[in-house]
């Protein structure tokens, strides 16, 4: 079975629609959302409604730090992220806010762990950007494969049978076998706000039978998404990021 892994949608309707359509056309039969449905983008209500509908159909959705900030506040956020959350909060309906507040931090299934930021203290939202932070995540779980997002830059860490950890920048559309002898930490790219100098939306496709992973890139109408961010009066930089992919 092919699973779709969607992380960091960030209220980007155009990217989400294009990615979902791509996933359906590619034979993805189950979805797992790794958090951060809101913040930064101009369509938070649409993003949350879409995820709610998928969850009713059997998808799994996890909590991200931006989703948590709707209720918990923006104390630990940078000013731009905080401004976007303060813009978002009054635009969500009560049922949407309640949905977000009930989301779990982690999900485990068949030796796989799914989490927004890191297996190490998931609610502390640590960024996995180095072998050191990857190592903390590896130590915190026994799962063979951990899937996370949060960084918006795709990276694949692996722990060898002899205890060495290395990172690898995945090549899009190339199937990577997640070999059984080692452990893997899959940092997904972002659906709605990529930061790896490639503005195309990123989602993951996992074949659970063969334990093989593909980082998929989907070009979408980022100019419309960027224009909506600008028109909404959100910080300029958030609009630019969608064009630059950085």
């Amino acid at each position, binding site marked *: 079975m092919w699973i779709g892994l969607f992380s960091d949608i960030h209220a980007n309707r155009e990217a989400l629609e294009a990615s979902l359509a791509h996933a359906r056309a590619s034979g993805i039969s189950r979805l797992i959302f790794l958090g951060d449905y809101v913040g930064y983008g101009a369509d938070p209500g649409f993003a949350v409604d879409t995820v709610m509908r998928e969850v009713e159909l059997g998808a799994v959705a996890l909590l991200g730090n931006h989703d948590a900030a709707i209720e918990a506040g923006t104390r630990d956020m940078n000013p731009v992220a905080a401004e976007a959350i303060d813009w978002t909060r009054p635009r969500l309906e009560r049922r949407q806010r309640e949905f977000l507040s009930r989301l779990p931090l982690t999900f485990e299934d068949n030796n796989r762990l799914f989490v927004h930021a890191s297996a190490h203290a998931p609610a502390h939202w640590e960024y996995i950007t180095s072998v050191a932070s990857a190592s903390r995540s590896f130590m915190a779980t026994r799962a063979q494969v951990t899937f996370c997002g949060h960084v918006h830059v795709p990276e694949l860490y692996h722990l*060898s049978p002899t205890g060495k950890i290395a990172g690898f920048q995945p*090549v899009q559309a190339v199937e990577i076998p997640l070999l059984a002898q*080692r452990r893997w930490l899959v940092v997904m790219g972002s659906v709605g706000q990529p930061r790896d100098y490639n503005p195309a939306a990123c989602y993951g496709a996992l074949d659970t039978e063969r334990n093989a992973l593909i980082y998929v890139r989907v070009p979408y109408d980022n100019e419309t998404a960027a224009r909506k961010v600008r028109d909404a009066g959100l910080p300029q930089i958030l609009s630019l990021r969608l064009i630059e992919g950085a």
Partner: protein
Amino acid sequence: MKPQLEDGQVIDGFRLVDPLESGGMASFWRVAREGDDLPMLMKIPLLRPGEDPLTIIGYEVEQMILPRLTGPHVPRFVAAGDFERPYIVMEFIHGTSVKSLLEKTPLPSTEVAAIGAMIAFALHDIHRQHVLHLDLKPSNVILRKDNAVLIDFGLSRHDQLPDLVQEEAEGPVGTGAYIAPEQILGDRSDPRSDLFALGVIMYFLATGERPFGEPQRADNWRRRLWRDPVPPRGRNASVPPWLQEAILRCLEVDPEERYATAAQLAFDLQHPDQITLTQRAARLKQDDTITVGWRRLRMWRNPPVSMRRALTTHLANAPIVLVAIDLEPAHEALNHAVAVAVRRVLATEPNARLACINVLKLARLSLDKLEDSQGRNPHLGRLVGLKHWTRAIPLAPDRITYHVLEGTDPARLIIDYARQNRVDHIVVGARGASMLRRYLGSVSAHVVAEAPCTVTVVRAHADVAGESTENSAQEA
């Protein structure tokens, strides 16, 4: 400890039939499976406690890479075991290991070139599939009647997947006699490293000796960065200059000085008379101590820097371009247009090679004379014509070769030539659109329909001002 394996034992549906000679890192069995005719081999890694971690990693690498490789130059992957019971089942290759040829060395130069070309084609095939072998040596090459098969991908690297070996190893990984200088310096991304190893194999086959000996310790591998080998002709006087040229070019320390691709090496080995001889071909002795000393000092002060490029980009920058030229005077305007098109194709490809083809068409039913009325070989005149045409092509002479092909069906000759030489791009002129051609089918149309690569068809037409211009249609 796992129980000993024995004849008749069945593992995941594979019946162990016959134990084979076991290597240092794995044991090998012939295996059979109900309802499967493919001759198969099971490789079981020896994962003993305290074993070199590269044994485990090598097993992982092979499990990752072998299933992705296809074609006649690799054993077909059949199955792999799980974590508890590691093994790989693959096609069993019947043939002659190059290792078994070593006791018959030195081999005649034609045989060395033929084996070298077979191995080069196998390398080109895996390079095109994003894989660098990186441990090429005689025991890892099996020769069949028509092709070479590469085995043991335990130290290999897939250009688009994590390099598990790099991450595991503290220093360079390979086999002392065959490892390339850049691998010794920690670069595992250059396809020309495999050409270096192939150069060592050809040297061995041609002279009976290894160019750099058999250093076991990695500390001693570095010497080849400054110390050149004894030229093959210094060891075996019967090695022809062209073979020495090809071998020493493979053994250049700087990968930029080697052949750009395995296909280009194979091309030369298949056309020895077309190899441009340089000072490499003339050498009979190693460089003197002072030259070597300077080289060592330079190496120490400016260690070579790796220019990492994606493998496919590297191959794309070094195409073999074939151009078919009709030398009839009537086609002068067309030939001019073809030259313009070829210049355009070559403009962005610094490592391209150009093979200029002219077809000597034989009548189908008569026995053609090999000489013209004045007793001259017609090939000669055509080679002169081809060389004259290439004056319009700004490419170093050692990158251009000339070939006159004979046969009744020009299109078929061009297509077969392109296939045999792994040509990447064909440029051919369209000689007009007469009724006859429309009914019989033109050469260019036939080439476009059946060529194994990209074809550019060039047209010439007189424009209003009377000057010929060209435009071309591309078919990929």
